[in-house]
């Protein structure tokens, strides 16, 4: 009897980790593409919120979940394009623009949500994504029900990690992204369009942030609330650094953070918390700041990060 209970506990716990990690993995991969091309996107927090809102609204109106996901992704691409327009084309300072994009997108998300749904005592909800077991794989003990009986978006996230690594390290476009992030001058001499490549990378990043937002409002919470993102964008900024701008390591960092988060939720629920749960939530930020100090000796950050590129300036 206790063995059965233990197994349910384990499966539930593992499944929770996967679900917490999924939006973080999307967001982290998105931020990583942007930063590898040399563009820090601090707009991520607001972009995720706006995408969660537009995706939720589209689904709420049309009844189609996948249309909602599409709208969220398009919203993310649009906001990515906005950030790229300012930072890549106009060469404005990336950190200030990013804060501007976050303030603008979150303001717009609040405004439009209130305009469309009004002020209701019970926030409207949708019938969100349901879990889809994968035949055979979901029969594997413990791991099967935890990993292979999930939302489709979770499977997409799992596939997105090797895909991101492949695109970044094995395709000509990925090479261009890495070049414009490390040495835009050399990339330009080699005939790579720095502006175009960075633009594309930031937009791809925005699309992934859109998936992160869509997951939050359409699979995890099935509603849009003003706190639906609540700092997950900033967590992604930390995880990219912690994961050393690498798709595998960044996704690993997301999984590690999800483990800590799931643990803290479980401790809170069981009332065992002698340690305040906030201490766990602080950890990724503290670890990242420490990691930045430790890593600074071997300079793993993209060299051209935060530096705008202007062809005529030598």
């Amino acid at each position: 009897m206790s063995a059965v209970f233990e197994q349910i506990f384990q499966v539930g716990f593992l499944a929770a980790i996967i679900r917490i990690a999924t939006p973080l993995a999307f967001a982290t991969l998105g931020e990583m593409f942007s930063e590898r091309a040399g563009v820090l996107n601090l707009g991520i927090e607001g972009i995720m919120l706006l995408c969660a809102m537009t995706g939720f609204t589209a689904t709420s109106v049309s009844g189609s979940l996948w249309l909602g996901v599409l709208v969220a992704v398009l919203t993310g691409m649009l906001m990515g394009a906005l950030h790229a327009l300012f930072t890549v084309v106009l060469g404005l300072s990336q950190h200030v623009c990013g804060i501007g994009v976050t303030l603008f997108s979150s303001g717009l998300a609040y405004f439009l949500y209130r305009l469309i749904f009004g002020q209701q005592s019970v926030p409207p909800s949708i019938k969100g994504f349901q879990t889809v077991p994968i035949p055979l794989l979901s029969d594997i003990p413990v791991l099967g029900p935890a990993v292979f009986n999930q939302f489709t978006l979770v499977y997409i996230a799992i596939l997105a990690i090797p895909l991101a690594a492949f695109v970044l390290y094995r395709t000509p476009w990925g090479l261009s992204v890495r070049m414009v992030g490390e040495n835009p001058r050399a990339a330009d001499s080699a005939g790579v369009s720095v502006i175009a490549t960075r633009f594309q990378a930031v937009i791809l990043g925005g699309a992934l942030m859109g998936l992160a937002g869509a997951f939050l409002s359409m699979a995890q919470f099935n509603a849009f609330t003003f706190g639906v993102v609540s700092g997950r964008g900033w967590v992604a900024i930390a995880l990219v650094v912690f994961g050393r701008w690498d798709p595998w390591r960044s996704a690993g960092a997301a999984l590690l953070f999800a483990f800590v988060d799931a643990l803290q939720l479980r401790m809170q629920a069981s009332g065992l918390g002698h340690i305040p749960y906030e201490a766990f939530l602080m950890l990724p930020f503290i670890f990242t700041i420490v990691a930045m100090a430790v890593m600074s000796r071997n300079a793993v950050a993209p060299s051209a990060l935060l530096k705008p590129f202007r062809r005529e300036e030598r």
Partner: protein
Amino acid sequence: MFRLEARSSTPAWFNLALPLLAIAATLVLCSGLIALAGAGVLESYGVMFTASLGDSYAITETLVRAAPMIFTGLAVAVAFRAKFWNIGAEGQLLAGAVASCFVGAIPMPGPLAMLLMALAGAAAGALVALVPATLRVKFKVDDVVSSLLLNSVIYYALMALIEGPWKDSFSGYPISPPIEDSANFPVLIEGTRLHLGVIVALIAAPLIWFLIVRTTLGFRIRVTGENPEAARYGGIHVERVLLSTALLSGALAGMAGVGEVGGVHFQVMSDISPGYGYSGIVVAMLARLNPLGVVPAAIFLAAVMTGAEAMSRATGVPAFLSDVIQGTALLAMLVALLFTAYRIRRVGATS
């Protein structure tokens, strides 16, 4: 054909013209949202203006709201002058609020309590800002990301305090115990909320302006920001200047928290700052990093915030319009700043 041409110097009237241009562009862009909400654009902006600046009571409310943004705006302006990218004013504000609330809860004579609250709040903010500055100076860690991430650390620390050992035992909500009544900042005009901290904020702006423009430290801060190599060559200890800038910037942001505790809320709660630290970036950019410009810029944002609530009641346009205006104003100002670096030149077909 038009092309952008580098510009070596900018005329002085740009300092006034660019923010006004950015604000005008913002109001025009956001009028689309008002129209979308089915309300009259001029009517809505009219209500916003009257409710925030139309009578003396409204003006005091706007000033109360502006005070924390004057402080965070000064904090960001000082830091950005030295190119110390302090995105952490939000966390420094929270640290200042917590420290001043701790001190304010200790029974002691009112004036002494207020003085010690200010000192504790400023010191707490300064210490928080010292972290990213030290990491940058000692380990070459990027200050944008480290100062931003510290905001989350401070926020969770605050939550742990007010949900745990520091929770007010008389309240069901996660809030800190209130400060002593004697430590409440005096209200300057009967029947309003205009408290002592607002005046301190208004005085701080010219003081910081004097410090930046007329003192040796201010000179060092400016040279370090404009050309660190030249600064070093000229015998300026750049690292030390960055650390001093961080202390000053953090102390100013901490003071924003002091004012909110001593003059507005009298205790600490999780939403004591609706993002005043980030608004400080908007304020500082609109002010073109000029401490004197911080005051009107902060009053503008405060007026939008107070006015938006009245506008919402009168016209039904969601009050969140003020958040959109804030973000749009920052982006518009950044674009307007391009005119300081470039001018648009007409290029003839023959050339």
